[in-house]
């Protein structure tokens, strides 16, 4: 079984959406449960979208490297991009207890991504953001 997913994703919103479709196929092939695959796809979608929307200060095309490995009970995700340095771990959490009148949607994507994985490691090296996620198969 092919339990490795590798993709070079362009920094465009449609490219992320296409990648999500491929990731769904990969997850189903690897018999991930609907809930587990949803969480994995949502976390990757939110993190990639964040890079595409906020990571680049120029209009050039960039490639984001995405690798996902399923190894027994573990799912390992690597995301490498050459955007501005951004550590999702240091992103402030939204105040989820605020009433509707004052609630702002900022930071929700990263917050959701963190909630759907078991750990996040981040380093910036050789000019690139290097994100490693671990999620237990659930």
């Amino acid at each position, binding site marked *: 079984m092919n339990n490795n997913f590798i993709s070079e994703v362009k920094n465009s919103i449609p490219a992320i959406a296409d990648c999500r479709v491929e990731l769904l196929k990969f997850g189903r092939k690897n018999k991930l449960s609907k809930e587990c695959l949803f969480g994995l796809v949502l976390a990757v979608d*939110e993190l990639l979208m964040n890079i595409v929307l906020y990571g680049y200060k120029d209009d050039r095309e960039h490639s984001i490297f995405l690798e996902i490995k399923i190894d027994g009970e573990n799912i390992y995700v690597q995301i490498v991009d050459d955007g501005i340095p951004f550590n999702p771990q240091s992103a402030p959490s939204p105040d989820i207890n605020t009433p*509707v009148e004052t609630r702002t949607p900022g930071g929700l994507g990263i917050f959701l991504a963190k909630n759907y994985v078991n750990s996040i490691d981040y380093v910036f090296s050789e000019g690139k953001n290097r994100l490693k996620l671990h999620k237990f198969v659930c």
Partner: protein
Amino acid sequence: MDVTIEKHNSYNNIILKGRLDTITSIPFEKQILALIENGEINFLIDCEQLNYISSAGLRVLLLASKKVTPNGGKVVLSALQDHIREVFEISGFTAIFKIFGSHDEAVTFLN
């Protein structure tokens, strides 16, 4: 993603089918904001066939709710699949939106 809008006397029924993501949230935002511009204040979002939602989708629902709440309006949701409901719980959106198990319960509330 299919968005179906049915106008009723006291509310607008919006049926979401498919995936509410960064791309599909854009036309959906335009549709719901156009209704609010026309004076509509009550919305029932039928989520029975909604399979995916990301923060972009949540953002549109929050925006709609913020626009209608000062005018006495409501955005309520019905029939969320378990994994969609979990996203609402994690985000704290279950405290913002009334969520009903079935479409009929939501209609009773709005009438």
